[in-house]
């Protein structure tokens, strides 16, 4: 069982909590005005169309209201959020050129080390800008592009223009519009037809500045019959003021292509994480999501898969762990738009110490999607009486001959189970984490090894209650 397989010494949460002195080169004023957006755009040297796009998005933002469902967002005051924080660092392909304090941060997070051992490329963003990017030479030779969004916008303008916020349009919801207006940083990946990127690429997003927002944009295009595993990580130190993350991820998985998108989200407990992720999948293509949500004060995250081509597939595996002071509203949605499309959603949510975890699934089968197949399995575990877990599935089936299965369980750790393990000489804490590890095991085994280890550590830390 988990105990012997991956029993690891506990890491310290303080790893994530180390703050650097704010040495940013430039910070926009807090709040959201046309002037601020013009200023960001000018500093980023946007093409004209991008400035227009930003301004349009701002208009949309001002028209839209906050969602009338989900967690309470009233404590978010946009007037107090600094939307653009430029680190005092130039984007580089050499860690030696990254300023010491920033490099040390990524060292602590194990990024350069992972780059040496298990990754084919790395992107590292600090506050609003990417400070480091690398990709293995042989991938470049095969035509793979992996770079920061700003570089992509200038060097591959046509591709970006054709895809940028086409899948997640600004009018989608208020925070998509916000993203369109103030986006900065993020990664761009292009995998040409038939190319298989065997080793994962990873982008890590670190927000250091207090009271700031991070709005990175990730755009991935996997051409026909190509494949990629992309890993996204994020963290921030904890502050007493609200920070905001409203990233946007757009994934284009073409016919016969395969993309695995793994995330371990570990924002600090002052973060409002209002993130949008969406994938469109062509004929015989496969999108696999692996999603771990551990951090944030409030989260709203529901990766969506649009199965557009015949026989397209979605596999979604997620785990959400809400502890004290956290309201994590996560889920997944699938839209079946073609015959014989299939989806498999499997999630685990855990809540403890008064945390609230809600899991929403939305499955839509359009009338163009006969023989769609979808199975949803969500399980929740509450570790005590003061915590809450909910599962809220919705289904909208128009297609004929659909095969839809849904299974949801909500349970508690019973005292009996804890007593049992203790009667075998195991401490109460270890007993709890053993049960939780067993519960998340199906998810953990989907993660790349280091991430499984990290998740394991996070679970242990959560259970020890050492986190605020």
């Amino acid at each position, binding site marked *: *069982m*988990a105990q*012997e397989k991956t029993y690891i010494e506990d890491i310290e949460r303080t790893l994530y909590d180390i703050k650097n002195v704010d040495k940013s080169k430039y910070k926009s004023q807090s709040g959201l005005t046309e002037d601020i957006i013009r200023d960001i755009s000018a500093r980023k040297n946007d093409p004209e169309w991008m400035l227009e796009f930003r301004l349009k998005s701002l208009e949309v933002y001002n028209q839209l209201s906050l969602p009338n469902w989900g967690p309470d967002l009233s404590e978010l005051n946009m007037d107090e959020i600094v939307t653009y924080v430029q680190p005092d660092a130039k984007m580089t392909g050499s860690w030696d050129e990254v300023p010491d304090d920033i490099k040390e941060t990524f060292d602590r997070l194990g990024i350069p080390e992972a780059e040496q051992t298990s990754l084919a490329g790395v992107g590292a963003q600090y506050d609003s800008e990417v400070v480091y990017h690398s990709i293995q030479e042989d991938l470049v030779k095969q035509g793979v592009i992996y770079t920061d969004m700003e570089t992509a916008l200038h060097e591959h303008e046509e591709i970006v223009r054709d895809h940028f916020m086409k899948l997640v349009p600004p009018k989608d919801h208020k925070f998509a519009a916000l993203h369109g207006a103030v986006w900065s940083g993020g990664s761009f990946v292009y995998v040409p037809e038939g190319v298989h990127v065997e080793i994962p690429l990873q982008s890590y997003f670190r927000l250091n500045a207090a009271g700031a927002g991070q709005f990175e944009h990730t755009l991935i295009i996997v051409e026909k019959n190509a494949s990629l595993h992309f890993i996204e990580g994020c963290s921030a130190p904890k502050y007493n003021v609200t920070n905001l993350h409203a990233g946007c991820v757009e994934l284009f998985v073409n016919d016969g292509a395969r993309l695995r998108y793994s995330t371990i989200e570990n924002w600090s407990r002052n973060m409002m994480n209002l993130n949008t992720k969406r994938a469109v999948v062509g004929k015989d293509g496969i999108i696999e999501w692996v999603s771990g949500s551990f951090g944030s004060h409030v989260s709203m995250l529901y990766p969506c898969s649009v199965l557009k081509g015949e026989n397209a597939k979605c596999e979604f595996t997620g785990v959400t762990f809400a502890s004290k002071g956290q309201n994590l509203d996560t889920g997944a949605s699938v839209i079946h738009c073609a015959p014989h499309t299939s989806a498999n959603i499997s999630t685990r949510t855990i809540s403890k110490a008064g945390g609230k975890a809600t899991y929403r699934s939305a499955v839509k089968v359009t009338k163009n999607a006969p023989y769609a197949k979808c199975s949803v399995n969500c*399980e929740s575990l509450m570790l005590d009486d003061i915590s809450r877990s909910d599962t809220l599935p919705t289904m909208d089936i128009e297609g004929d001959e659909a095969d839809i299965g849904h299974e949801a369980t909500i349970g508690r750790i019973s005292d*009996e*189970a804890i*007593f*049992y*393990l*203790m*009667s*075998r*000489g*195991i*401490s*109460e804490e270890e007993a709890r984490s053993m*049960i939780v*590890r*067993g*519960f998340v*095991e*199906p998810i953990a085994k989907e993660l790349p090894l280091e991430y499984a280890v990290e998740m394991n550590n996070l679970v242990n830390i959560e259970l020890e209650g050492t986190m605020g």
Partner: protein
Amino acid sequence: MLELKDLTYQVEENNETLTIIDHLDLTIDDGKFVVITGPNGGGKSTLAKLIMGVKELTSGQMIFDGEDITDCSITDRARKGISFAFQQPVHFKGIKVLDLLRLATGKKISVNTACEYLSKVGLCAKEYIDREVNSSLSGGELKRIEIATVLARGTKFSIFDEPEAGIDIWSFQNLIQVFENIRKTVQGTVLIISHQERILNIADEIIVIEDGKVKTQGPKDEILPELLGTADAVNRACSKMS
């Protein structure tokens, strides 16, 4: 040696205090095969849980091998050598029969060793070792697996609460043999709660618990005839009435 001194366990129910274990004194010597019996609701299971620490005493003292364990956690008691067979083994996601046995021994025992424990309780080991512990196993199977885990622990002091419950007649004979073997081979103290004559029959010592107190305690040869005598008397009385 286990010494229970002036043990009391009370619960509050509807603003009333119920005394379940009532100033109970009891000493159990080392290496004995002891069977506790007595009427339903007499407090036997409660007593067993108090010994393991699964329930917390209201007052009194417990001494195990000369050491006061009154305030010890379940974990500490387990580490000091007390084991308890639950009505059912724990089950949670991902846990397999082999894991239960490994948990019990605290070692990464080999599949073969694990199988030996299962054979001892009459389970064809190979079929079970890799199975997940869940409702696909029958009540009797779960029960036997649980007994096997306590055997695997091999501690100084093992408690079984009605091990025969839920076991079919055919397997019952088998179970008696299991306990006879335990009696012969296990060095430590074995405490069984049972209503079964055939289990009472292999005891060194019998303790009768009634109304939360020790009613009698003594060697089997003294106590058993008394108990059976009562049962006979009741039977006779009943047959007269019908």
